[in-house]
């Protein structure tokens, strides 16, 4: 059974859109009280990458005009054998102090992320919030990140990807992206995608140009976080397994990859 990712599909619900559009034609607005600060941590471990990224932010709760990234946090990832890797805050392009993005260079610690291994994340913000979580990387073997471009006609061709299910994974995610936008869904093998595929909003998925197609085995944290949604009208529950905050600490293993040069 294949499903679109929750965030995309949810926002495209025709009925909700129609009803809310009708209702919001005459809404009344009033200020409401800010709510307590909530820390959002989002991190996805990927053994095919030598740098792992952790994003630490404050949710928008009305405390300020926009929720802000959290600078100066202590971010560590601990390997199954107890190696504690400290993530370093990144500078913004304007040279302002590091803000929100923290990176761990595995080479600094001589660590290789091991499929099947369980890793722990710990974040302590300057305000004293502590957020923790764990993830177990699916057991599959990562494919080479680079691949030679293949010619693909959006009008004529069909993309087929075969893969063996990965032990320890909760699901498999297909991503078809160019540098601006893309399409993602959780899939079963084999994946057969027509070049004329449209997304839920009716736009063509194969937009043209170079497009990266990947299939990744994902852990349960990742799968549940991205398949669920919370919404004041439509209900729903966002599944987040972090303690002390919200967000995700998940892991993926890319098990299939194609680069397509999409033309008409």
């Amino acid at each position, binding site marked *: 059974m294949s499903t679109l990712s929750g965030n995309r599909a949810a926002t495209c619900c025709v009925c909700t859109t129609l009803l809310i559009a009708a209702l919001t034609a*005459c*809404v009344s607005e009033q*200020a409401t009280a800010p709510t307590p600060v909530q820390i959002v941590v989002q991190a996805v471990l990927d053994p095919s990458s030598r*740098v792992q990224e952790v994003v630490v932010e404050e949710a*928008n*709760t009305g*405390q300020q005009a926009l929720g802000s990234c959290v600078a100066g946090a202590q971010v560590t990832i601990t390997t199954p054998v107890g190696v504690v890797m400290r993530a370093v805050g990144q500078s913004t392009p304007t040279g302002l102090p590091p803000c929100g993005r923290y990176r761990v260079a595995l080479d600094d610690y001589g660590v290789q992320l091991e499929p099947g291994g369980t890793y722990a994340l710990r974040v302590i913000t300057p305000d004293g919030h502590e957020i923790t979580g764990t993830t177990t990387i699916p057991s599959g073997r990562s494919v080479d990140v680079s691949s030679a471009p293949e010619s693909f006609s959006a009008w004529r061709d069909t993309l087929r990807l075969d893969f063996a299910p990965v032990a320890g994974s909760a699901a498999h995610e297909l991503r078809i992206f160019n540098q601006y936008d893309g399409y993602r869904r959780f899939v079963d093998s084999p994946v057969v995608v027509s070049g004329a595929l449209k997304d839920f909003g009716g736009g063509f998925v194969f937009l043209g140009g170079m497009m990266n197609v990947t299939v990744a085995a994902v852990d349960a944290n990742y799968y549940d976080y991205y398949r669920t949604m919370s919404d004041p009208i439509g209900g729903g529950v966002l599944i987040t397994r972090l303690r002390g905050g919200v967000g995700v600490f998940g892991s993926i293993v890319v098990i299939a990859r194609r680069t397509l040069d999409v033309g008409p």
Partner: protein
Amino acid sequence: MRLASSPALRRHARAVITLLQLLGIACLAVAPPARAQEMATSQFVPLRPDGNGVAWLRRPLGVVVDTTTVARALQAVARQAGLNLTFDPYLSGLDAPAPRPSISGRVAEALLVILSATRLEARVSASGELVLAPLPASRDFTGGIRGQVVDSAASPIAGAIVSLAALRSSAATDAGGRFTFERLPAGRVTLRVHAFGYVDQQQTAIVPAGGTADLVFRLTAAPARLTPVRTESRTARQITFEDRPSVSTTTMGARDVRGVPSAVEADVMRTVQLLPGVSARNDYSSTLNVRGGESEQNLILLDGYPIFNPFHLAGLFSTFIPAAIGEVTLLSGGFPASYGNRLSSVLDVRSSEEKRDGMHGTADVSLLSASATVRGTFGRSGGSWMLAGRRTYADKFVNAFNPDALPYHFRDVQGHLTYRLPGSVTLATTLYAGEDVVIASTSPDHLTFGNRVLGATLTKSIGDPTAPGGRRLELTQRVSSSRFHTAVLAPDEGFTLGATADELRLAGTVTAPGTSHDRTLGYELAAQRFDYATNTTVVLLPVDSFRQRATRASVFYDDLWRVRPSLLVQAGVRADLPVSGQRALISPRLSAKYFLSPDLALTAAVGRYTQSVHSLGREDVPLRLADFWTTSDSLLPFSTAMHYIAGLERRVGTSRTLRVEGFLKAYDNLLEPNPASDARVAGDEFLPTTGRSYGVDVLLQQFGAGRFSGWLAYTFAVSTRRQADGVEYHPGQDRRHDLNLVGSWRGSAWTVGTRFGLATGTPYTAAIGEFDRREYDPVMGTLDGRSGAESRVYLMGARNAERLPISHRLDLSLTRNGRLRGLAVSPYLSIVNAYNARNAFAYFYDYRRSPPTRSSAPQFPTLPSVGVDVVW
């Protein structure tokens, strides 16, 4: 049977019965009580149709409705004649079905017709006392007479009274004008025929020993001068009050439904929402929450056949065509064993049945739709038929100017037929088909959503209750098919959804009505199919695909026991048999009514209720597009509930009633759709919860009398649910106070309708923040935020910890009761939310601003609408 209320009268009556029983003749005494003691010593002669010159026996009489048994018919006659009545309930023949007396006959004629079904005779004294005695036995009663009464054009005359004065026997003709006398002594007899509007006629016939004489009476029409007659019959409401425990039972007629101001057009479900114990979730929904229950817990029947999703336009309107509806009964709790598979209520919607000769019809054009009905009868008592249709027309209008601008419409067809077959068999069939359609000529996308119901019921009475020890049985056999389907195909968006709920049901009952017991044994056998498939996860729609096949079998026994004149008890048990991998479930039901006086009764009910079908719609979501049904299997248990109800019912006159009831429902295995259900995992579709709902509801109602009808309904209810992890919360339908005032004033020229509602808010979960969900790019190795609402995720506060504010609304309607060329033409104006109360439907949040803002989406603003009803 109910004795006269006065203790003195009761003593008199008992004394008379005792005395007459000692004399071996007395079974019934109808007389002014003060003179009853003289009865035994009076000289009695057989009662004649002319009443033997006794004034009260010559009184005109209205329609006697209740002819279930001879005893009840006698009571009905006595009630209309304004007399006290007592008789020995153990007399043979009193529990026989009674023939229906003619309209506008006399008391004496009615008594003779009723007693013609028995071997009893009425005797009257010169002073007007009446007694009942068995006919004398005779060895020569082997002959018979049969015949027909026709008019000068040879058309049969139904309801004519044929009397055998010498034998103190009489009969009423049937629809074919036919009559029969059996077990007559051989020899010469004189028959006299009386029919309203005709000259009386008399004939003499020879009854052959062991044979049957044939006669034809051809009557001459005679203009009759009608004297003012006040007819009074027991209405369905009176019968319900007097003859049934009727706990938590509310009945409305079509007039009640149409008298309520409505949004665009009259709507059965929206009218039911105004009854006590019923809560409407919001203005945009016509679903029902009954006494704190979830909206899936209501068994909705059309002429006794279940219908899965009786709604149009995502619940904004119900499927029932107002003009096709005759009566609506809501059982808001404590319902008897004959109803199963729902936890909270039964809504029994009955099609209208035409009573008048000829063809009649209605047409109604509202801003929403146009509807029409045609109806007629198959002769005077041969049955009736009705066909109705409705369609929205806005699409036709809009698309004529701008093609495909409004690619939506819905339509309904409803038919009902009742036909009386030979052998006391009645066939009733119902057809309903309705569909919502979204389809555009320029797009491959389409959506259909609809219900189909087809059902047939055969009823038959068998047995000869007049024979010694004879009993009557009423057999009912039903077969029905009910199907809900929806299909959404949006190939451009890669979105497909299909759902089907299908049930083929066979059901039957055998009822043995008696003087003190009405016993019913019944069964239900259902083959069910539930399919749901979708390829996407969309908020408001289930994500799980499934295919289920199930067979359900149930048996039930129900006994309505008239313990004493002041005590009615209805006891029953329902067993859901072990099929489809489930264990048997036994559901005992008990209800009782105790009359403190003829107009005041205490009521109580207790029972266990089960439900095997479960909706995937979430109650916390204020919008309910549809109920997608699934059924209990090895992974999903039956949901159960215990009902405890106690109340008081007071009848004020013949047209007002007051009912106060307290209720407690305790739920177990209540299945709440899992908001985080994984489409790839079977068995996680529901989360088990327990809970309870309790409260009080009040109904003060005036119906059908005079120019005003309406009701006041107030409900106080508290509902709590407990998750498996022990967390307790108030479900989305937990409305604490709900008051509705409904009134309709009907004048000769105008009808004014009003409805005022005042209700406290329902719980909701507030958003307490928001953030952007970032996506990991394995090519770049970064987490990127996608812009806009696409990636926005709300942080939600404690479940249902907030409540919407109090809402209130005044609706008005004004109808002109006009006539045009023989047609009743009634244009109407309806205004919903007349003073434009700003009631909140839901809140939207924006936490990207400081301070954050909360926007309220309103419920109905002021909505005026016009339409016209035409009736012929």
